[in-house]
């Protein structure tokens, strides 16, 4: 990515986060205690990553991060292999069987709620930042009566901000031309000023959610300049930059980041799917380096990186890599890399572990009790 373009994206990301904070009069949080970052990255087959045929797609994970990590070689998704259900299952420690489109909240208590209630931390200490269109803000908290939105996380969908701007312009029949910034800007303004913009999922609830003119103008400039470039703009890039801005301003104790560029596989381009994997490889590496450069994070952060599931087998009736619903080993079997504070001895763990064990692992790391049925993951210093 060219420096100029990234600077513009960074400015847009910073303004989005600033606006959120300004609306509440919140100052930057002081860094406190251990931290956890969970990164999920769509559906990726083992053969396209940690296998002889896939290592070329993940040079940073393989060469730079693997030597300092614990790699769980056999992480299993035994639930519904859709995005909303899988991430809900990871967050709750119980396999969720919900509407795939995120119409209902998870049926079991999320780690966000446990953390906020037991440790009495503010909402700005728990975040979910997601590229994935399949999620909704309902994932921030459960439908369990004693918990719920009062203890939920902040949820941000940065990619949706951009998509909605573009799509709404298109629906009105106005093409987005490289020089036609007047077309895009009103759409962005409308979205940012909207009362019920669920793409941000911040539940402003009566607070004015308008951006000041200077902030709005800068975002417009950033996005208009993005349109001018010929290089592909990825949603994950913007999600990454918003994540870094949130880290800088709030230093959250728990962040869940979901990337999804590789989900272009649903439309049948294997090369773009592999490109999405490479983007995530780079962004995860950059995120880890960013962690090392932040005093509030360095030496006290554990980062988990995992695909949500694999993808279907070549030759399956579900059309192979396009989808992730076959229920085969190729779909359910995946891996997870753990880095940082919870690692005392890098290595490989071959024994099968479940995604539902992540919730009690995070709980133990923060010293809180959880209702999850599974045990914490082995091989980590919690």
């Amino acid at each position, binding site marked *: 990515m060219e420096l100029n373009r990234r600077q513009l994206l960074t400015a847009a990301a910073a303004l989005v986060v600033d606006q959120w904070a300004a609306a509440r009069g919140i100052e930057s949080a002081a860094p406190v205690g251990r931290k956890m970052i969970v990164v999920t990255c769509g559906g990726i087959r083992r053969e396209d990553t940690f296998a002889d045929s896939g290592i070329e797609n993940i040079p940073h994970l393989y060469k730079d991060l693997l030597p300092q990590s614990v790699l769980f070689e056999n992480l299993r998704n035994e639930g519904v292999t859709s995005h909303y259900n899988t991430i809900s299952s990871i967050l709750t420690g119980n396999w969720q069987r919900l509407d795939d489109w995120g119409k209902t909240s998870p049926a079991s208590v999320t780690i966000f709620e446990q953390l906020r209630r037991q440790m009495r931390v503010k909402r700005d200490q728990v975040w979910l930042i997601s590229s994935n269109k399949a999620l909704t803000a309902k994932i921030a908290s459960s439908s369990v009566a004693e918990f719920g939105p009062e203890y939920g996380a902040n949820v941000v969908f940065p990619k949706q901000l951009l998509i909605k701007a*573009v799509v709404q312009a298109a629906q009105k029949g106005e093409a987005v031309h490289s020089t036609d910034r007047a077309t895009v800007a009103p759409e962005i303004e409308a979205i940012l000023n909207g009362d019920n913009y669920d793409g941000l999922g911040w539940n402003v609830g009566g607070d004015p959610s308008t951006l000041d003119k200077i902030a709005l103008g800068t975002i417009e400039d950033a996005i208009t300049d993005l349109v001018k470039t010929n290089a592909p703009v990825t949603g994950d890039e913007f999600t990454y930059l918003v994540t870094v801005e949130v880290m800088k301003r709030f230093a959250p104790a728990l962040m869940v980041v979901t990337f999804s560029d590789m989900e272009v596989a*649903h439309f*049948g381009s294997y090369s773009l799917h592999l490109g999405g994997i490479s983007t995530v490889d780079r962004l995860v590496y950059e995120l880890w380096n960013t962690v090392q450069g932040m005093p509030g994070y360095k030496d006290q952060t554990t980062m988990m990186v995992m695909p949500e599931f694999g993808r279907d087998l070549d030759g399956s009736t579900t059309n192979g890599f396009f989808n992730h619903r076959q229920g085969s080993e190729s779909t359910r079997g995946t891996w997870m890399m753990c880095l940082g504070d919870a690692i005392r001895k890098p290595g490989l763990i071959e024994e099968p572990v479940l995604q539902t064990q992540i919730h009690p692992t995070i709980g133990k790391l923060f010293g809180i009790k959880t209702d999850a049925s599974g045990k914490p993951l082995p091989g980590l210093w919690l």
Partner: protein
Amino acid sequence: MSMMDGMGTNELAEFRKAVARLPLTMRPSVNGQLAEWATLFGYERGRVREFLSGVTAMTPAELEALTEPLRKLEGKMGLDRAEFHQNADSMENASLLARNEFYGEWREQVRRVYAAIEARARQGKAAETVKPRVVLAVLPASLPYDAEKVWKRWKEPGIALRIDGDVTEIATRVVSAVSGSKAAASDGSDLWLIDTETKLGGAKAGDAAAMALSWTELDGLRAHVLERVNTVPRSIEMTDQILATIRAEDMSALEPAGLKESPQLRRFLIDLYLSGNGALIFSNAFVQWAASEALRRARPRVLVARFGMRQKPKPFTGIAIFENQERISKLPAVDDPKGSAVDAEMLARYVYLSARRYPEGEATAYVVVAESAGSALLLLPEAMKKEWAGKTTATPGELAEWLGRVAQG
């Protein structure tokens, strides 16, 4: 409904009775096929008839014993209490099933019951001999392949031939060789020509002798369907309703010449567009998914799939990819030869794997031609291998003529 193509009122009534004897979750698919009888291909009609004859041949006690585990499972899954649509498959049905904890067990039970009923239908009948078939995949000259490495990613053992002559002639020669033959299926579903462009000998959509689909000829229709699909909200219930509306819409003004005269092909195309898998987004995905579905639904004697070039995602469309790129951005389209080559090679292999999935695959000569590498890979049944044993080169004429002969049986 008085008389549907090839099915009388009495036969339909008997079919409906047979469907009613099936467990709840097996009814929507068959009911959907009966409702769309006029748009089914010859092979599909035969398959439905055979299956229902197997149901009819079973006594109530036999069928009850066979289906009891499935019925009990449906009860355990709560499907008898849920609003499970029986008239046709739906997104809502699929969602209910897929997120149920017994989904895997359910799939296995349905597979078992289907297999037993089909076995019953075939009882006492002589096994039919599968006639030889041809599937030709073309990776056009615009896609860069290295002659030394082009077939390395193919896991299947095949015969690699260097093509001595104008390799771009192979596809049109094969089409010429097979077009003259009398199609076994009167609806034209024995010969499929699926192309990203219009380079397969000028066959048009709806050509009586062939099922021909061209990505470029379908530009207007595809753009319209894509626009309509993009109105689908985040609600499974609403999705079913909107998809039904799209299916029923009169889009004849946007259909290329001939398509509207072929109800089977029109229905096939709309089903294809609405079943995802990139058929509305990328030309190579369209070709692969159309080929795979044609092999599944029509079991043709000859299928030619010609892949092509994909453009690089434009700025912004990389993040809003389920959109019409031309409409979103007026920046000039830029080809992506390298990425397209990766996509097309993978998807050509998927066409092969689709062909292998069915009994007909055992008698299918599968040939993939990489024009830029001047090379062809032959994946053949044992009986056909001897024809090419020890050969390393062929002229376009030799290969096309041989494929023509295979197709003639």
